[in-house]
């Protein structure tokens, strides 16, 4: 159910933006748009179905703690 809603939401974004991009023949924009959208979709999908994704904040935290340890 949630996955379905997710797909619908991202499909709506795509349906809203893509015709405009194609009409303007901005192919580079289309590629970037698609990549970002797929990234967003994958991340959301992983969270919806419960796949563990590494958390970048934990990474930053680790770097900061390591850096603090140096001093």
């Amino acid at each position: 159910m949630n996955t379905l809603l997710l797909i619908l939401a991202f499909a709506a974004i795509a349906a809203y933006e893509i015709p405009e991009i194609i009409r303007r023949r901005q192919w580079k924009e289309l590629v970037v748009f698609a990549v970002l959208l797929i990234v967003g979709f994958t991340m959301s999908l992983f969270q919806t179905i419960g796949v563990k994704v590494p958390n970048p904040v934990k990474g930053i935290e680790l770097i900061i703690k390591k850096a603090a340890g140096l001093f």
Partner: protein
Amino acid sequence: METEGGRISGSQLLALLVLTRLVPVTIEFPLVTGIEVPQDAWISSLVGTVLSIPPVLLMVHLSLKYPDKTIIEYSQLLLGKFFGKIIGFVLVWYWLSIAATMLRSVGDAYTTAVMPETPILAFILTVGFLSANAARTGLEVVGRLGEVNMLVVLLFGFLTLTLPYKVMNFENLLPVIAKGIRPIMLPTGTAISFFVQFIILGMVVPYLNNPQTLTKSSLGAIAISGFMMTAFTVALIAVFGPTVSSLMLPAFSLGRMISIGEFLERIEIIPMGAWTITVAITLAFFLWASAVAIAQLLGLRRFQALIYPLAAISVAFSILFFESFLDLELYFKEVWVPYSLTLTLGITIILYVASLIRGRSSASEKVIGSCHRNG
């Protein structure tokens, strides 16, 4: 080839910067919650305001050297394509992470205080969607929204911090700095770490009606938001005394202390509403900046198409980054300050040093560069 066609005025920039800074002020958990000597928090906020003037002035000065370029463009000019782009992407990451944090704050604040039964995504999606819509229409609309709403937010903020006057006890502010300077340092760092978000003005300079108003706008924004932040801290300490460091949503709790006669009470939704407006507009501002930055980094002609995907990514980040409200709180306490300070100050200093070196080696190149861009 201009990605953003809109223009905003100096006062609109001021409003946007004030709102950006007010996001943590209005609910303000990082400044007073969990700190060691709560009665000195107002000193931290005041000192933090003053100490953030030099780095912000440095950012302003840097941007004014290239008034027709965004920070994304001039960092490539200064450091070369490769390193310039790295800085650009780091900034985009920084802005998106701020956007995610703000979204999560809204969600956690609403689910904690107002509607615990509602899933957090309902609030995150609502605010995210509204902000994305605003950002998609461009800087001009965001600026105008900011200008109008800043007055509303300031008025509501002012009401929230003055109306609980009955329960205020200013003796709570004493003794001043009884336990030495050390416990004040962390909250001061927190205060500065939010001011350095002003690095976003590097995205706005070319779209200012009159770039020369930049200095005035930035200093004005520091003054207004610094005053608000300090006044809020003073009011909080006066009302809650030492218990203030236990409050999860201090400003919200402050609103709950308003009780005038029998009729004017339970109006804590006022600070909540003001804060939501603030977050929504600031979020739109950051989404816009990220989209324009990516467009410029990759040489796209339109940033609008990127807004919705970026908003979706921030929503996903907001869920991924933090597992609980405590996580968010600890992030502000332990990660955010060094992260934000090193990132923004590092980028500003690197770019500034590079601009000094370049400025010495060839003064003419800059002119050529800017002609090229306009052509």
